């Protein structure tokens, strides 16, 4: 078959690869401005208490200290805008978690600023900290949020839950828990603010969501949006950790620059980033399935609780996504889901790749294996019986569209992993190393869905320059995921311009309208469509010129990626550059703005029913593990992870996304264990908090399935988060298959495994 796309679907070289590999890319700490000062944050050293006094006199005397500011110096509003607006930029009279910002030091260098911060003395009246979600929800616990410590709750009711369980032949239920996860981006959070002559301010920094930062600065400084410019610098990873909390960093640094009238840099140490920045929520999940003897699940009940930490930040919306997906990717007629995000005196949790789904998936994909064993049906078969397919209904009663390659994803992953063969293989009794296979599947609503409907839009600006090169601005950010490359491919394809000619500019809030956040696996879809819109307008004008050059009044114009031709005379071609030159001479506008809004979605807050998302991706992962039952050490040998993403604009980038997600999920499953005592993180460094090294990474086989979404650019849905959702649970299921130890906690540490072994 003749290929009808030139560059979309090709694994072209990433357009940011050279500077990143050579080390010439500039991250925020590489920037310097004339006369720049340095900030450092004074943080709470207790988990819960009243601030009695703040003594800055000793710190202020240190040579090189320019000033020290507290909440009373804030000219605007003392909270950063995010859903419940409860998180103050600087604590006023109480602190709710260890590490909460209280004051800001600004000095002539970072070392002095840090030293001065240590010499700011805060007197507290300590209060009993609320550290446990169950205690937080009790009547007699101290209340740190509202009257019940509940940041947000949801309910989803579908069918008749009691009737459903009555009809069931077999019922299984269990409780699962997951720990924190730290984003572990290579580049810690940091910003530079530069005051402008007009009283405005420009902020540069590492971030996912420049428009959130924009709002935050307007809030803290009480100045108009048109005096604020936010520029994203090359960003060393985000994974959700740079979604909301960079607003805090930016607010702080903007305040310092505004008050001192000097450029100020505020870059966090790794320890500060651990203590102060967001984390994946610890999850607590009670889950129950009821099934007929033939395997058909007829009822599912979930009680899902997230530990939100001291402030709401993104907890409501993380909880919402988790809730919508909580019974798993299954067509179940009777569902009851109740969910809560609960306030505790610990670091506020927020967005993290997967966004409330990995926790819930651990519960439902573990329980489905437990159910399979009880029904004496294979875990694969049980999933095949119940999994979503076109026209089946989710827990919110959302109808699955034709864009559902779930069946193919599962069959490919099963085939490539030899899952069934390994699953049924008996381990030798004498051997201390046991092999096992595990499976987990999931669906993922692409984009913000009904939970973020009103900010689900994206803008773009595109311009072909005199020499034929193209510049594009989008509102989404490059975090390493490769969105600039994907956007360039889409523009190149539509325009007929060579891929190498296209450049995506540094994201800047003055270039395109608020395009929402760079989250929820939405950038390819949203910015992709916005660029598609802009590029199509320009291409129309190009086509008119091409027809004119061919002396035709109408007809369809084609491109082979560098030349244009028409179907009636495909041999005759005109080079792209020639057409562009003609357009310029004839004063044709080769620029356009693009816009895209997501399809309509809905969610009824009373029943939890509605079209939660406009499209879903589907995934399946098989993990093969070896477990040393003497030491409890798990070695993952192989992971096959498949994803229906609609269309892979750049297959190699997609494979890399899958590999990265698998590795992050492996860390979540096995090695990454944040330890807190009295609300204080005990291992706030990479020496204590262990992300996988290259030695821990198994063979990874990524599988891509393309079941096109009609509204997506070239059919694409989204990929960023899907690979993070299933691997950890596939690993836990594989450990069970290998050893017979069912782990109900993530991470599965060797300590837990030996405990289970000793109980047996």
């Amino acid at each position, binding site marked *: 078959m003749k290929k009808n796309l030139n560059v979309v679907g090709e694994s072209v070289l990433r357009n940011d690869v050279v500077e990143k590999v050579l080390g010439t890319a500039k991250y925020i700490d590489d920037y310097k401005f004339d006369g720049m000062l340095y900030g450092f944050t004074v943080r709470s050293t207790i988990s819960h208490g009243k601030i009695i006094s703040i003594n800055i006199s000793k710190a202020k005397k240190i040579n090189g200290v320019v000033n020290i500011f507290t909440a009373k110096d804030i000219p605007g509003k003392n909270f950063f805008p995010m859903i419940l607006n409860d998180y103050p930029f600087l604590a006023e009279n109480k602190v709710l978690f260890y590490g909460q910002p209280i004051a800001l030091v600004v000095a002539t260098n970072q070392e002095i600023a840090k030293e001065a911060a240590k010499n700011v003395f805060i007197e507290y009246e300590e209060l009993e900290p609320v550290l446990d979600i169950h205690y937080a929800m009790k009547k007699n616990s101290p209340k740190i949020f509202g009257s019940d410590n509940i940041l947000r709750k949801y309910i989803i009711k579908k069918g008749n839950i009691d009737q459903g369980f009555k009809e069931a032949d077999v019922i299984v239920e269990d409780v699962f828990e997951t720990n924190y996860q730290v984003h572990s981006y290579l580049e810690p959070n940091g910003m530079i603010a530069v005051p402008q002559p007009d009283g405005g301010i420009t902020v540069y920094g590492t971030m996912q969501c420049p428009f959130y930062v924009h709002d935050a600065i307007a809030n803290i400084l009480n100045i108009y949006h048109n005096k604020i410019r936010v520029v994203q610098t090359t960003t060393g990873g985000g994974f959700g950790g740079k979604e909301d909390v960079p607003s805090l960093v930016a607010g702080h640094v903007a305040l310092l620059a505004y008050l001192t009238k000097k450029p100020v840099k505020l870059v966090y140490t790794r320890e500060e980033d651990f203590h102060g920045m967001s984390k994946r929520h610890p999850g607590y999940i009670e889950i129950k399935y009821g099934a007929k003897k033939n395997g058909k699940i007829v009822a599912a009940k979930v009680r899902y609780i997230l530990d939100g930490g001291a402030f709401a930040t993104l907890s409501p919306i993380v909880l919402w996504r988790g809730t919508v997906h909580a019974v798993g990717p299954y067509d179940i007629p009777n569902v009851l889901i109740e969910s809560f995000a609960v306030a505790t005196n610990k670091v506020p949790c927020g967005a993290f790749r997967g966004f409330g789904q990995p926790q819930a998936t651990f519960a439902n994909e573990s329980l489905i294996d437990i159910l399979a064993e009880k029904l004496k049906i294979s875990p694969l078969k049980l999933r095949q019986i119940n999994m979503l397919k076109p026209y089946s209904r989710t827990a919110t009663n959302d109808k699955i569209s034709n864009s559902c390659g779930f069946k193919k994803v599962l069959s490919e992953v099963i085939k490539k992993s030899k899952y069934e063969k390994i699953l049924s293989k008996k381990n030798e009794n004498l051997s201390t190393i046991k092999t096992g296979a595990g499976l987990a599947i999931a669906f993922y609503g692409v984009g913000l869905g009904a939970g973020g409907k009103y900010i689900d839009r994206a803008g773009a600006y595109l311009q072909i320059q005199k020499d034929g090169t193209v510049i594009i601005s989008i509102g989404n950010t490059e975090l390493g995921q490769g969105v600039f490359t994907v956007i360039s491919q889409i523009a190149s394809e539509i325009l007929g311009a060579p891929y190498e000619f296209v450049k995506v500019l540094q994201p800047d809030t003055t270039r395109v309208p608020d395009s929402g956040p760079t989250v929820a696996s939405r950038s390819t879809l949203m910015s992709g469509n916005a660029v598609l819109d802009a590029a199509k307008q320009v291409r129309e004008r190009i086509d008119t010129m091409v027809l004119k050059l061919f002396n035709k009044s109408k007809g369809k114009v084609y491109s082979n990626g560098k030349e244009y031709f028409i179907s009636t005379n495909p041999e005759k071609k005109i080079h792209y550059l020639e057409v562009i030159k003609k357009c310029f001479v004839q004063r044709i506008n080769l620029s356009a703005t693009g816009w895209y809004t997501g399809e309509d979605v809905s969610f009824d807050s009373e029943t939890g029913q509605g079209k939660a998302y406009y499209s879903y991706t589907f995934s399946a992962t098989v993990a093969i593990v070896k477990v040393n039952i*003497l*030491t*409890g*050490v798990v070695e993952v040998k192989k992971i096959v992870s498949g994803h229906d993403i609609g269309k892979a604009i750049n297959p190699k980038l997609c494979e890399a996304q899958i590999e990265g997600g698998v590795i992050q999920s492996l860390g979540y499953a096995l090695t990454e264990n944040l330890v807190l005592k009295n609300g204080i993180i005990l291992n706030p460094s990479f*020496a*204590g908090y*262990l992300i996988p090294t290259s030695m*821990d990474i198994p063979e990874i086989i990524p599988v891509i399935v393309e079941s096109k979404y009609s509204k997506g650019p070239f059919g694409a849905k989204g990929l960023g988060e899907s690979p993070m959702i299933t691997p950890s649970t596939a690993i836990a299921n594989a450990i069970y298959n290998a050893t017979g130890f069912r782990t109900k906690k993530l991470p599965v540490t*060797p300590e837990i495994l*030996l405990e289970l072994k000793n109980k047996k």
Partner: protein
Amino acid sequence: MIYYPEYLQPKTLEELFKELPKNKKIYYLAGGTDLLNYLRDELVDKKNSCFVDLSKIKELVFINETNKNIEIGSMVSFNILQENNLVKKHFPAITSMCKTFSTPIISNRATIGGNIANASPSGDSLPVLYTLNTKIEIKNFSQTRIEDIDKIFVGPKKTNFKNGDLITKLIIPKQVLQKGFSIIGIFKKVGGRKSHIISKASIAISAISKSDYIKKINVAVGAVAPTVLKINTISEILNNKKLNKKLVKDSVEEIKKVISPIDDFRSTANYRKEVVSSLFLESISELFKFNFYD
């Protein structure tokens, strides 16, 4: 005020002891893989300290064979140690340990002397050096003394060293082998991931054996007590014996008797207690190519 430690970079030992300040706490900077972290984490009294950088002192980098011993300079890095043929031939446990030591990057900088001076109960080289009856040469100004390695540690990260004491070399006795006998050795550890990791528990075994007959064996464990422990009672049980399951089981009991592991963020006392026995069983099984697990 911000203070910095005083910094010296002598080229010879003679120069070092000539310049060494007497009124400051001396920190010898070897590979820096621990010390620089302590500096960053504010565990060093910067105002009253002096960092003495040893990296230019060539006379501390050597591995020599004498009549009775192998002598290893304290500034020998783990990478050099791992590649050295004398070490491979005489002390297989050292080579085994080097293979699991941190990462290639850290191994390039980290030194054997630094690992000893840091005195961590989870220091990977220590159990191995215990099993080899290593002696440590320590210099301070004009004085030189030699101590057994198991005598210098008094607690976690604590030695009996006086200010200015510098480890200059390790003296490890070579074993005299009768015909048919060979020297075997192994080091095993368990940590939170496969590499670049601080041990939750570790074990070293060095032995002279012929098939399953043990002439002499030394076992030491790490990270399960305030200091590394050499378990002499195991030597008593196994020396001059043909190995069997009963003896191995008795040996495990001896480990359990002497260790006193703790709970910390890395692991639990219970786990450490169990896993160090597992490591012993795995090591013995691997060394003697027989399954002693059950």
